[in-house]
């Protein structure tokens, strides 16, 4: 949140004048004026760009009003989805409503975010109908603009003209461009519908059916991103669409790609900010227009000025782009993204130089980011929602995790579009990329955005991205791309679970036989490689995203590393997704649980909204059967991604519900596996894609039905019928987190597991090995739903091992699982673990109520147990501060109680010495301290030979010195603790 706030502020600092300047520069003012009414009404972010144009045309001041308006529309949609956003938006929206309505005049109906925008324009009505449902007011407005301006735009429509519009128009240019390139009427409408769909979610169907099935996928991905992120996602989608449009419609693919990339960069920055809050999401979505969006939102909350400033920045960016790049429109886009990012640095400076720099930075990033950006943006959005609830570190991880699935989905989206209209893109793309200096931009961005951007960027594994992009590039149509996305997701998740993501050479992956060795491991060589790739595949944007990401990734990795040990490992090339997941699972299970909880409601909402939307779409679309499928698939893909993510997070948890879900997930993936097998063939065979697609959709439907029914439906599933019976006879098996349905041939049956447990228990290897083995045993047990004495034994064994090495998180997992197992009446060392539990509460939670409740829960029988009695005695010693008793108990601890006490020893010693130093006069012999405080013979009881005694003494001296005690040697040569001085 803080980041966002800062961003907004910085944005605010940008001078409105800059915007005006642009306008001045741009000859399009007249045109813009036409737009103004419509655009102002239309959206916040992307529209900000528009706004800029519009604003100048209308008046410098009104930009605020337009923003408000935009905001207003957005807020309404957002409010529906996100409560948190809603509040901030609501305020802004109210303002916007007042302002915008006048502007709209005839369009007033739009102004109602309610979703039903009755558009007077006949031609667009169909499209609008889609819009209307989903109240993206902003979009509707643009639509209106088109309708109204239809004529003016077309003249303007030439990209150059749009370029003249400046950055702001770049988005608008997309709108406009469609008109120009394609038939103005049909194209814009379709594009709008896409946009609307993205906004509304329900509109997706419309999208896909019309032309941009690819887009729809994107949008769906965005939706999947999360309720909170939904708005932002929509935006992103829109942006993507825009980008796509650019690419497709515009011959100057490069600019389009650049724009996209810019957008992505901007999105990244916003994302950073987003992480904290939903609002962040918006910016990301804006990325193309994202930045603009973000600003509008922020402005809403903070002030109207910020939006203006942003536009200004964008404008400047546009200028630069103009100069640097032939295509102004593209430039404009860049600036817009830049603005969010650069807003701080550049701020309101009207000086072109600054802007240019910004633009440059933005541009470089953009190319790389382009498609990836889109992916990232959705990812980012999801993270924000999650992050809000979870801790910061968790947020990061979560965000990243989410991003993975989405990335896959997003990439496909972008690719299909490219494929269709790819030929043009290739040629153009290269120049655009060249123009942009990727490294510079990335660096600048990093510096400007600080950690946030880095983190976001870090989410994506470079090589993996490139891999995905390649895969997508192969796809020739939407279906393929969708299927490809699915496959990619699975692969990635699998890889993550296997831990092979890091190790695997994605470049060399079989699925994508593309011979781009360059792609691998390149942080800096990005530019050349992307270009080459593009030339080959004509899908340069995707690759570039990779290259650009690389630098960002590194930084992010570093940050992550600080957060998580895992991150450090992965830092070199590790896919961000993996990083995120692992850290989460290992370090913060509790957190993940929280996350899950949070997510589930979101998921439900999403699914519900999706279904509704779909229905509406279908009704609308008479001939959209194919398109519908595409939409459905995309939606389902997104859902799957989310579910997969969830399941991944859940996988670590041990509760039965979680297990059920896990099973659920695994079931879902059964089909996926089949597809995966085919995935290799997939690229080569277009025909095969159809089948895959069909399968996918069914799988998706399945998963959807699960989710739609809510998690409640899970209980109704016949789990017995789905239970796996293992056939594997191998005793030793490494633990890999399941990302697909368990394969019976790799699951060990109970007898084998029993042997495996014995083997582990007798093994002389280190804890990591044992932990790994035990986890795999636990997994096999879970998968086969074995819950008996063996299960208890395994968990007990694991808990003990974990205690021995002080691995509390692992121990807690086992303990909570054991609690459930014991409650089911399965015999085990109940008392032993009751004692552990008690000790845990005593030692690690300073909560008297917890202690009381766990004490009162002990049965009379339990209190007679030696271990429990010991634990109770320890408790008494701790509460009374009786260190002598404590260390006596420490030495006589049964089972592994001493291991738990270990964790409290330091505290106790310190307390004891501070107590002694106050009570004793004049001196205390260190030998006595060493004896009383358990230095002399630590865990190994009663083996204190003379040697050990002296060792203990030395330890004690060291320890005392380390804690600032004052030691004196007395006349007898005995070391004394000078109590007075200490």
């Amino acid at each position: 949140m803080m980041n966002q706030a800062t961003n907004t502020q910085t944005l605010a600092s940008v001078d409105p004048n800059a915007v005006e300047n642009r306008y001045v520069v741009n000859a399009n003012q007249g045109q813009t004026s036409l737009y103004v009414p419509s655009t102002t009404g239309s959206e916040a972010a992307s529209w900000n760009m528009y706004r800029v144009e519009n604003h100048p045309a209308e008046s410098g001041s009104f930009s605020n009003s337009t923003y408000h308006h935009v905001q207003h529309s957005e807020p309404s949609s957002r409010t529906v989805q996100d409560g948190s956003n809603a509040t901030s938006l609501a305020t802004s929206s109210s303002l916007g409503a007042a302002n915008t309505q006048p502007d709209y005049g005839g369009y007033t109906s739009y102004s109602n975010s309610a979703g039903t925008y009755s558009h007077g324009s006949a031609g667009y009505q169909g499209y609008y109908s889609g819009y209307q449902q989903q109240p993206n007011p902003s979009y509707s407005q643009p639509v209106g603009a088109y309708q109204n301006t239809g004529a003016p735009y077309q003249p303007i429509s030439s990209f150059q003209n749009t370029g003249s519009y400046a950055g702001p128009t770049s988005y608008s240019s997309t709108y406009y461009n469609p008109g120009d390139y394609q038939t103005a009427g049909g194209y814009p409408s379709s594009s709008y519908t896409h946009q609307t769909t993205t906004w509304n979610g329900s509109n997706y169907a419309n999208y896909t059916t019309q032309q941009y099935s690819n887009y729809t996928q994107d949008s769906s991905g965005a939706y999947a991103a999360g309720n909170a992120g939904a708005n932002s996602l929509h935006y992103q989608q829109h942006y993507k669409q825009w980008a796509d449009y650019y690419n497709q419609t515009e011959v100057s693919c490069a600019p389009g790609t650049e724009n996209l990339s810019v957008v992505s960069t901007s999105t990244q920055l916003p994302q950073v900010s987003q992480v904290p809050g939903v609002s962040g999401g918006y910016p990301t979505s804006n990325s193309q227009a994202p930045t603009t969006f973000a600003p509008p939102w922020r402005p809403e909350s903070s002030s109207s000025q910020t939006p203006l400033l942003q536009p200004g920045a964008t404008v400047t960016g546009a200028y630069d782009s103009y100069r640097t790049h032939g295509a102004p429109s593209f430039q404009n886009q860049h600036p817009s993204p830049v603005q969010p990012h650069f807003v701080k640095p550049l701020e309101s400076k009207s000086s072109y130089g600054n802007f240019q720099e910004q633009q440059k930075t933005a541009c470089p990033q953009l190319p790389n980011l382009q498609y990836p950006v889109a992916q990232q943006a959705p990812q980012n959005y999801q993270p924000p929602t999650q992050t809000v609830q979870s801790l910061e570190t968790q947020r990061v991880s979560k965000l990243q995790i989410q991003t993975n699935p989405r990335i896959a989905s997003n990439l496909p989206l972008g690719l299909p579009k490219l494929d269709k209209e790819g030929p043009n893109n290739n040629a153009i793309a290269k120049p655009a990329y060249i123009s942009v200096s990727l490294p510079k931009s990335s660096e600048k961005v990093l510096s400007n955005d600080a950690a946030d951007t880095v983190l976001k960027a870090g989410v994506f594994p470079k090589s993996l991205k490139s891999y995905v992009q390649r895969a997508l590039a192969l796809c020739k149509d939407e279906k393929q791309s969708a299927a490809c996305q699915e496959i990619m997701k699975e692969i990635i998740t699998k890889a993550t679970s296997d831990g092979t993501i890091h190790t695997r050479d994605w470049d060399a992956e079989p699925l994508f036989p593309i011979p781009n060795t360059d792609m691998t491991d390149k942080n800096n060589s990005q530019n050349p490689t992307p270009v080459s790739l593009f030339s080959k595949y004509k899908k340069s944007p995707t690759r570039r995203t990779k290259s650009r990401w690389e630098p960002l990734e590194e930084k992010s990795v570093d940050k992550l590393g600080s957060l998580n040990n895992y991150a450090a490992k992965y830092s070199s090339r590790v896919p961000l997704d993996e990083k995120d997941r692992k850290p989460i699972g290992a370090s913060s299970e509790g957190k993940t649980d929280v996350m899950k909880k949070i997510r589930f409601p979101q998921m439900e909402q999403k699914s519900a909204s999706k279904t509704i939307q779909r229905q509406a779409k279908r009704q609308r679309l008479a001939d959209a059967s194919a398109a519908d499928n595409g939409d459905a698939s995309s939606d389902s893909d997104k859902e799957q991604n989310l579910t997969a993510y969830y399941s991944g997070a859940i996988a670590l948890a041990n509760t039965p519900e979680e297990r059920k879900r896990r099973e659920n997930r695994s079931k879902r993936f059964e089909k996926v596996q089949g597809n995966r097998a085919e995935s290799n063939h997939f690229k080569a065979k277009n025909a095969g894609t159809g089948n895959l697609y069909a399968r996918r959709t069914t799988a998706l439907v399945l998963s959807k039905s699960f989710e739609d029914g809510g998690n409640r439906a899970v209980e109704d599933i016949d789990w017995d019928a789905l239970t796996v019976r293992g056939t594997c006879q191998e005793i030793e098996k490494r633990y890999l987190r399941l990302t697909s349905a368990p394969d019976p041939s790799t699951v060990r049956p109970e007898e084998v597991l029993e042997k495996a447990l014995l083997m582990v228990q007798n093994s002389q290897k280190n804890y990591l090995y044992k932990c790994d083995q035990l986890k795999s045993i636990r997994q096999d047990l879970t998968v086969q739903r074995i819950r008996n004495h063996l299960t208890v034994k395994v968990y007990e064994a694991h808990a003990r091992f974990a205690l021995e090495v002080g691995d509390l998180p692992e121990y807690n997992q086992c303990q909570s699982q054991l609690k459930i197992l014991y409650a089911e009446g399965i015999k085990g060392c109940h008392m032993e673990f009751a004692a552990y539990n008690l000790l845990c509460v005593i030692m690690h939670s300073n909560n008297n109520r917890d202690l009381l409740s766990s004490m009162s829960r002990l049965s009379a029988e339990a209190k007679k147990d030696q271990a429990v009695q010991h634990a109770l005695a320890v408790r008494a010693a701790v509460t009374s501060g009786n260190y002598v008793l404590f260390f006596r108990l420490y030495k006589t601890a049964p089972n592994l109680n001493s291991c738990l006490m270990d964790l409290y020893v330091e505290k106790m010693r310190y307390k004891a010495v501070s107590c002694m130093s106050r009570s004793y006069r004049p001196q205390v012999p260190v030998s006595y301290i060493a004896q009383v405080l358990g230095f002399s013979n630590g865990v190994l009881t009663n083996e204190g030979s003379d040697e050990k005694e002296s060792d203990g003494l030395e330890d004690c001296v060291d320890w005392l010195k380390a804690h600032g005690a004052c030691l004196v040697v007395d006349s007898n040569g005995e070391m004394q603790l000078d109590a007075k001085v200490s």
Partner: protein
Amino acid sequence: MAYPSMGEAHRRITDYLNKFCDAVSYQDVASLAQLFSFSSNSPSLLSLADALNFFQDANRLIKQSDKFSQFGEILAPLFRSLQSYRLGNLVEAYHAFEKFANAFIQEFRNWESAWALEALYAIAYEIRVLAERADRELSSNGKSPEKLKGAGSFLMKVFGVLAGKGPKRVGALYVTCQLFKIYFKLGTVHLCRSVIRSIETARIFDFEEFPRRDKVTYMYYTGRLEVFNENFPAADHKLSYALTHCNPLREANIRMILKYLIPVKLSLGILPKTCLLEKYNLLEYNDVVKALKRGDLRLLRHALQEHEDQFLRSGVYLVLEKLELQVYQRLVKKIYFIQKQKDPSKAHQLKLEVIVKALKWLEMDMDLDEVECIMTILIYKNLVKGYFAHKSKVVVLSKQDPFPKLNGKPVNS
């Protein structure tokens, strides 16, 4: 059961509806509150419930006249709730009652003055009681009891309605107390914090302006919270407030307060009179007090063990356990006095062996090291003034006030 005739049922229902409308229009809160209090099991309500069950189409009656139908949102679920309540289907009754309560709050919000507060109290109370009973029903059916939680969130809503400025704020404390009851019952005490904060940080409204009964209840619960936190001075203040302000005739309430106040006072070094314990039937503390007076460690431990379950449940176990140090202090003090009688000049030098012997006599088997540790802790916690000479194993007491009294201050920790 004799069913009333159709006409009789009709009459009863319209009677009730009329009463409701009259109460609202005349702002007669007493009779309005009566109409809601299910748990009073008043005959008029019961007969109405019978009539409703007999005369199934009560909603038609509500819709018949404008006078009633304007409250249809409120009355329809209320009738349904009453029907289910009468039939013993408490879960259903709870659901309908919550709907009714929501509708009522909606209406209440529109009323400018706070005249209907009493009715709102009745609802807050009823919904809590109903939720508790519904939960009992649920858990006896093997389902997870969650209604009380639902009632909690509903009351939070009510609190939100009341907590603003204006005359309605007076009612906030009552709702808070109902919330406390729910949270303590659910064991989700941490949820109290937000409510407490909004009560205590509100400067616009003086705490003393709340009704007395609510103040007492509030102080009682917040005092209990302080006991959990082992913040004894604050707990003492709050519980004492509750004690001095509560109705002296309500012995059950006084006993509840004393149950927590006594341990708090004990840990502050203030002992109750035996007659107090007897009067309020708090004999479980008797031995504890005696042990403190005598310095009888054995007795204390025994008392703790005997009433362990009780103390654990009420949450004072840990508080009482900490009295051990005071018992040690008392013991040492006694030894000191005996020594003084024997040999005043050396009385301030307590040999560790003597203490060990005394503990042995109490059948407390502790060796030198352990007793030494206890003594250092006593000195550390300022229960004993002096120092410990390790070499000679002697506690050297200060010549001035070697055993400082707590005097209402908690033991240092």
